[in-house]
């Protein structure tokens, strides 16, 4: 696992969907909407969710499963770092 949370997420996107293009798709704008720019589809979000829960040993509450928390790199990072019990990379 990479040493920063951001890199961990980029790696996952590359490994599963973009194969090296994730960074250029995001294009330096960490607030870019995944859904609107086709970076991740709704089916992909479920996989990301499972990945996060598995990797960081975290249980994400159903009420938190929404685009408000997961639709961009920045949103995911903000949400996770604030999550109680989060011990993953910063």
């Amino acid at each position, binding site marked *: 696992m990479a040493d920063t949370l951001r890199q961990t997420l980029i790696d996952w996107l590359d490994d599963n*969907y973009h194969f*090296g293009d994730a960074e250029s798709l995001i294009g330096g704008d960490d607030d870019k909407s995944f859904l609107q720019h086709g970076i991740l*589809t709704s*089916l992909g979000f479920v*996989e990301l969710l499972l990945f996060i829960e598995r990797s960081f040993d975290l249980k994400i509450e*159903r009420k938190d*499963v*929404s685009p408000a928390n997961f639709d961009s790199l920045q949103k995911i990072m903000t949400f996770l770092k604030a999550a109680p019990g989060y011990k993953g990379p910063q």
Partner: protein
Amino acid sequence: MSFVEVEFAFFLPVVLALYWVMPRIRVLQNGVLLLAGWVFYASWNWKLLALLVGGSLIDYGLGRFLGRGVSADDATQGSRRRLALGLSLCVNLGALAYFKYEGFFAQSFNDLMGAFGLSASLPVLQIILPLGISFYTLQRVGYIVDVYYRRLPASRSLLDFLLFTGFFPQLTAGPIARGAELLPQLEKPRRLTAMLLASGAATVLLGYMLKAWVADSIGPQLVDPVFAASAQYTSGAHWLALFGYTLQIFGDFAGYSLIAIGIARLFGVELPINFDYPFLSKSLPEFWRRWHITLNRWLFDYIYSPLVSGSGWFRGRFYSALMLVFLASGLWHGAAFTFVFWGVMHGIGMMVHRAWDEYYRSLCRKDRRYVAWRKTLGYSLAAWFVTQSYFVLSLIPFRAADFGQTFAFAGRLLSSGGTQWAQVGTVPTLNLLLAAGFVLLYHLVELPGLRRLRELFFAVPAPLRGAAYGLVVIYLLLFVPVGASTFIYRQF
């Protein structure tokens, strides 16, 4: 009453005028809309309006209970909340099951027992299907689940909530809105602008073209005769009927959805889009993100996602969850084994796609060239062709009356002893070609390179644009079949 029926031409202007002459106060505006919705529904069957309103009242009460703040005694509260959720699901899904599936399940059970030599006689009731129940049930269930998970605050105003569950543009056939989309709009007064009227009217016109012109011209002329007497028609006529049905069902439902969205917009309310150029899709998952969007995202949000990411048996079992979702979709579309079969076809399709995708992803990880190949025109075209062909073929059981007809029709696509060909005169043929061409054009101008064409149209001076709309109306008056047929999706 449906939007393409004549009485609606009397109903809509009256409601619209009443709505906008009201002072701009939420209670008055919502009152007019709610009353209009009830009149609209009662004009179909006033007795079953009670079911709609009664169910909404129950969900309003349960929603208020579920939306209360967290109390000190968390354990008791938790179990009571689960009880409230369960109660709402029982009432909603119970009513749906009773009205929509009683006959199907009772008949199937009796047949099954019969097959084992037992005689069972569960009564097969001839129940009238309440208009829109498949749509308003899902919208209310979505609301209750959202409130339960505290993703959405419970609606405080009974008036707003009743309107949320009885807003006439979407009442009979969607789009199925999320609470978070629709409720906030109903909680504040709407303001009339020229943009609203213009865009609403243009959307209604576009929807009307797809529904009353495209779908209702193609269906009776190319599709119905072949499905009615399949053996008499040639293979070519079967292919024509199948493609015709594809265009018909798209025109029918996408058109009706657009009319609903356009009418809602005339009242200053924005409904979610329901079709996003599905015939451009290059994979089945993409297709379902573009076709009947509000149903598929509901199935995804409230069935697939909780199952796969929940803690039960389905956790991480993507394949099984996909099959379950499409079985549910099949049953939602109709209480018949042909729809179940259709659901299984798409469940399998989604599973095969996922297997292929995982395999291809493993190739991509090894070799970057696969990533580039996937972006080539050749790959795109092949993917598009496979996706669309699969969808088109899956419409055979969707349209056919039973399995016998399904397989007979499918067989005759390859070889048919029939000699008849669709019998259409010269002028109707030109009209049908134009209708099919219109659906094609509708999709093409969404392609990145051609979007400019649409912008060009809106840059044309207003009088010319008006003239173009005028010509469209004239064409529709000349060519839309009189007494255009019923709306297919309303039966679901």
